[in-house]
């Protein structure tokens, strides 16, 4: 079974590992990875023993067992502290990783030049490959095309240079030649961009802000007006207000054993979340939300509340999918006594639903039997 071309695997958009001749870089790469999700830290936090994890990972782990997953030391959520240095390190490593990856890659030029003998005649091929090595950002494809026609690439490199220089002196001579009346240009006095034909009038008027900007302002005012209208008419601003009302403070966990479904629903509605489902569903939704919400406070790139809500619903759906897939596990589970109890506990809500359905069915059957009087057997068969 060859799984190396597994579609799921290729669906992970993940940077390739460093070559084995760089064990230090591999080690560095591993060190910014959370040991629970095996992915780069997101909102890293540390606990009492000094081990660090993603905030959401350790929060969900501590929900199951109040111990450090790495060293088994007793741990609790109260110990969780943001690890800002680690977050900075992870972020900056993610940013510099591609650069270092390119630097660590063995230079591929010699093979390319051998494949294309024409270049060997060209003395400039060597120099172009030299510049390539200095430029870690250039990808393989561009390097290929570059060595194909080194002189051309040179020219384009030079023109790159020119463009950079142009950026400073741009509006002096070149533009005047190329531009037509319909093009835009900066006003020589106030530097705001407007159509060339309107510049004289614009200067005569004493440089009022250009129309496009006015439009922008106008639009904004329009929006503001609309917003206020909404406020006064009381429509749809409710949702927005709710977002503002949400206090960006860690949520304290309710006592799930004591909480009534109504308690849970009120927590969920405080954060504009769906309040459907039985107590088990509600509890798991509240739990997931608290983990998402609280860990979102442990990062310097927090997600918006609506993004968090979307994430919660995605999580719920994907978990449901996984549960449906994991039917075999269920069969295994039913083999042992403990497993049977756990299954019964997990599926209590479903059992309850089935029980009600059966009671309902019985009731209906009785009604029918009473209605039909003598035709008892028939009634059951019809059912």
């Amino acid at each position: 079974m060859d799984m190396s071309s597994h579609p799921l695997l290729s669906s992970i958009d993940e940077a390739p590992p460093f070559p084995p001749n760089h064990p230090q870089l591999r080690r560095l790469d591993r060190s910014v990875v959370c040991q629970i999700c095996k992915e780069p830290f997101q909102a890293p936090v540390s606990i009492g023993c000094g081990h660090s994890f993603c905030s959401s990972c350790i929060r969900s782990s501590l929900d199951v067992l109040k111990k450090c997953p790495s060293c088994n030391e007793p741990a609790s959520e109260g110990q969780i502290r943001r690890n800002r240095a680690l977050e900075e390190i992870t972020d900056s490593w993610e940013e510099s990783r591609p650069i270092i990856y390119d630097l660590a890659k063995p230079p591929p030029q010699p093979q390319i030049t051998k494949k294309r003998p024409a270049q060997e005649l060209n003395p400039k091929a060597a120099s172009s490959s030299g510049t390539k090595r200095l430029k870690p950002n250039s990808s393989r494809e561009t390097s290929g095309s570059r060595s194909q026609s080194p002189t051309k690439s040179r020219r384009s490199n030079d023109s790159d240079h020119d463009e950079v220089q142009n950026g400073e002196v741009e509006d002096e001579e070149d533009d005047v030649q190329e531009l037509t009346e319909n093009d835009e240009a900066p006003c020589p006095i106030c530097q705001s961009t407007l159509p060339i034909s309107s510049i004289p009038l614009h200067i005569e008027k004493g440089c009022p802000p250009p129309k496009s900007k006015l439009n922008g302002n106008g639009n904004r005012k329009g929006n503001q007006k609309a917003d206020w209208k909404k406020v006064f008419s009381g429509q749809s601003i409710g949702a927005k207000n709710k977002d503002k009302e949400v206090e960006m403070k860690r949520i304290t966990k309710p006592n799930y054993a004591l909480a009534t479904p109504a308690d849970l629903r009120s927590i969920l509605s405080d954060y504009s979340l769906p309040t459907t489902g039985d107590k088990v569903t509600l509890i798991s939704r509240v739990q997931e939300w608290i983990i998402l919400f609280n860990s979102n406070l442990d990062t310097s790139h927090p997600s918006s509340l609506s993004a968090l809500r979307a994430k919660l619903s995605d999580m719920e759906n994907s978990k449901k999918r996984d549960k449906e897939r994991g039917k075999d596990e269920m069969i295994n589970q039913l083999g042992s006594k403990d497993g049977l109890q756990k299954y019964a506990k997990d599926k209590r809500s479903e059992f309850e639903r089935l029980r009600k359905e059966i009671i309902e069915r019985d009731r209906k059957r009785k009604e029918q039997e009473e209605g039909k009087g003598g035709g008892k057997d028939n009634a059951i068969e019809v059912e």
Partner: protein
Amino acid sequence: MFGNNNARAQTSTATRRLMKEYKDLTADPLQDTITAGPISEDNMLEWEALIQGPEGTPYEGGVFAAKLVFPSDYPLNPFTITFDPPLLHPNIYPNGVVCISILHPPGDDPLHYESASERWSPVQGVRSVLLSVLSMLAEPNIESGADVECCKLYRDNKPEFERRVREQVKNLLGI
């Protein structure tokens, strides 16, 4: 890797983590005595593993198939390993389920293991567990046995135990 919140959301935590582990196992294989991977493409929660009997044990020469089943809240809870067909071993139930401390769900710690490496925790994974299975095959732990009959046999009549295991290995290989 940080910008892929969407991809992360579409697949569950369990599936993502398992994909990651599988990728890791293919990139850096577990010695050459174990291969493991998902059975079908659309379900990452079921894997199959082929384990070679360790040298110097009665299991030597055999190749044993095992099924790995992961819970939907993996890695918070451990997975199960079932040898199919069942293997004669003090720590394997007669139905093939492997019973080792690293696979016990967190919370119940009947033997009070001190070391985290002997217990399930989310930092453990397929790799560490399969390594434990290898060492379990080499050194049965009859203090927390699963197959009581087999434990007794192992303790009282080791040569007979080894003979039966070898016989089973031969049968499995069809010799």
